[in-house]
């Protein structure tokens, strides 16, 4: 039966001083969440793996080696080679760099756009809010993958273009979150007090609403990065990704798809698992941050 019972705050906090500050408490809560800490470890590992790894384990990722294609893992090629003779482990580092950079940048971009849009809509209210949110509704009604495919039919973007496009299709969900947050914050007593004594809107937004949205924004960014890395994988699968000889994990995975039926497992499992691990890690960190900050976020 103890299962129904929720832990409660100790009674009597109303007029007894609390001893710990919010941020320190949040950090402590986060560190106690084992899944979140594991996620942090995974992210750190992959950052080292992709950015420091090539210095230790150096491979040729520009020239094809058609005399040694689709080799099984061995002492010389720890994870074998791919269809044009690239060392698969080296390629995993090389492609991971692209996946991580695009994912982080696109996730951050989406959160920035979403935060500004949501904050303006929520703070302005009225018809401005209504129009801005209908635009968000319309954007959400068109699945991102469809937009990306249409774009791929029109043009083949470079890396910055890819980041921009991914950012532009994924800011909608964070904008909703931040709008909801702004709606609550703008009616907080300290904002009302400021406005009653003649404080400006700018001050209310910059000094109160944005600083108090920080935890929500951080949590949103983490989930957004997870989503962006996943989206990068789809994008390459759909043929919009970075062009050869450059690659990313999604590109490696889709290149290895046909090989999978021939039993070349080393061409799909490593990039597949890498995507899953990194995306899982960012989601676990996001879950941990959300619980630690005690903010509302996804699921």
């Amino acid at each position: 039966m103890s299962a129904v019972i929720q832990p409660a705050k100790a009674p009597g906090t109303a007029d007894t001083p609390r001893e710990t500050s919010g941020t320190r408490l949040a950090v402590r809560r986060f560190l106690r969440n084992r899944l979140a800490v594991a996620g942090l470890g995974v992210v750190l590992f992959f950052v080292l793996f992709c950015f420091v790894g090539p210095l230790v384990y150096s491979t040729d990722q520009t020239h094809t080696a058609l005399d040694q294609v689709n080799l099984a893992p061995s002492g010389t090629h720890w994870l074998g080679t791919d269809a044009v003779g690239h060392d698969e482990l080296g390629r995993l580092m090389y492609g991971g760099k692209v996946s991580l950079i695009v994912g982080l940048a696109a996730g951050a971009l989406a959160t920035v756009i979403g935060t500004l849009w949501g904050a303006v809509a929520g703070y302005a209210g009225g018809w401005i809010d209504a129009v801005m949110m209908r635009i968000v509704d319309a954007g959400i009604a068109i699945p991102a993958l469809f937009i990306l495919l249409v774009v791929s039919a029109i043009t083949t973007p470079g890396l910055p273009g890819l980041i921009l496009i991914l950012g532009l299709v994924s800011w909608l969900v964070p904008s909703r979150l931040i709008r909801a947050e702004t709606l609550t914050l703008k009616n907080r007593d300290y904002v009302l007090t400021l406005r009653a004594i003649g404080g400006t809107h700018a001050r209310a937004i910059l000094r109160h609403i944005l600083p108090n949205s920080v935890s929500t924004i951080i949590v949103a960014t983490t989930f957004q990065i997870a989503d962006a890395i996943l989206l990068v994988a789809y994008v390459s699968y759909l043929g919009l990704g970075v062009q050869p000889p450059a690659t990313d994990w999604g590109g490696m995975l889709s290149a290895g798809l046909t090989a999978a039926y021939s039993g070349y497992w080393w061409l799909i499992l490593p990039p597949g698992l890498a995507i899953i691990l990194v995306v899982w890690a960012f989601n676990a960190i996001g879950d941990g941050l959300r619980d630690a900050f005690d903010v509302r976020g996804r699921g």
Partner: protein
Amino acid sequence: MTATQASAAPAAEPILELDDLDVVFTTESSKVPAVRGVSLQVRPGETLALVGESGSGKSTVALAAMGLLAGNARATGRAVIDGTDIVGADEAGLAALRGRTVSMVFQEPATALDPLTRIGKQIAEVIRNHGDVSAKDAAARAVDLLRRVGIPEPEKRAAAYPFQLSGGQRQRVVIAMAIANDPALLIADEPTTALDVTVQAEILDLLRRLAAETRTGVLLVTHNMGVVADFADRVAVMYQGRIVETGTVEDVLLRPSHDYTRRLLAAVPRLSVAEPDGRAPAGDPRPDDGSGGGDATAPVVELRDISVVFGRGKRAVHALDGVSLVVRPGETLGLVGESGSGKSTAARVALGLIPPTSGTVSLFGADLARTRSRARRALRSGIGVVLQDPVAALDARMTVGECVAEPLRVHRRGLSAQERRGRVEAVLDRVRLPRDIVRRAPGELSGGQRQRVSLARALVLEPRLLVADEPTSALDVSVQESVLKVITELQDELGFACLFVSHDLAVVQQFARRVAVMRAGRIEEQGLTGETLLHPETDYTRRLLAAVPVPDPVVQRGRRAERLATLAAGRTGAEA
């Protein structure tokens, strides 16, 4: 147990017996003892009030007696209900007991009921938990119960969802669930705290009647001494997890023996009431020292014929309807009323936070609607604001120093950092907070300290008008007393005018020179506090005053009889 108990109820065996009960909470950082060695008894037909301030552990005792403690709480000792020890009982045993032998009424009627289940069904569920009753019979009994707790048209209302009922009606439904199986013991945890004072009186009448009908023992948990005086036979006073004093209601409230009880009772604001023969009451309201201007001086704020309408068409809500108010320099105007009366809306209109649909607001002689934004902002530097919720009042991301300095940053931009620090320290001295508090975070402060920080922020610009919206309602009485004292002293010293919004008539009577009573968006009557609250002109104000329970069991008994007689007369009058 003490000797007073044995004499109070000699015959029957106690229905509830707590013996050396301890409850410890495990929090993220430590183990907090909430209840320490509490022993008490409730006998059939008697009401024991467990009183104390927040954090005293009184609600934890109630939950422990129901076996409803949170998962991180551990109880030791004994809590025996009708022969069963609740501490250590298994869940099946507890379920068999709850709702049949012992029931509970909770503080918050807004959330106590399942929002998606019709109320008749929720009552029927309790009935069917404890007897082989058909759904149809249970539904019929649920309708009977709704009638017993005074819900009009019970057949129809049984099909209503909780959101379709008012707060008072919801609490009646919770009570109906509690009495569904005629329990021997009823535990009521602050059953009227969330309700308006007139509704509180009705709910207390209902509980008293039901308990008397079935000789149910009642454990009443409350912080309100008036409610204790109105309802309890015996009182146990809790302080820091322990019971410090137990006795009959007359003994504890009129002749308290423990020092804490005496201090607590001294802090309770008492409503002065006119004696039946019309002579002046014993306790005098705040005297009019004449320092405030007479009617001749120009008002600091004036609301003229203000109406506020939210929404349009059929769903429009008239929050204010033709409200006119004046606050003159140096005086305090108390704005009282029940929830939904529009008192907070009126304060917000005065603050310029809500634009009136019609009517004019003038602040320091200037019409707010006609001033331009820059000039209007300058005008507003003459206002200080303190709102109700001590937690929401301060931005948790700022330090106390930054919070207090914010008005200076808005209106005195020329100040150097050092001058600013000087002003902040000076105003903290005034509200009697230590200077080193500036570096603390609001989250580290107690509720009373936070309200003083809000007050410091409100006064740092030396305003001509302080608008205080229920500034002490979230505080314990002892803290409320000290905060009100600070405001009074500073007002004498600095001479600002004050618009003081409160639901608490006793507080307003002590604090305000003039009072305006609001009801449903209109001003019912206004005048000098000493006259209006002693000899009200309207029926509504009379009813409002009559519903306030005073913390003296003898006086309160007389007031209750008088109020019920008036009600009965009104009813027969209406029927005739």
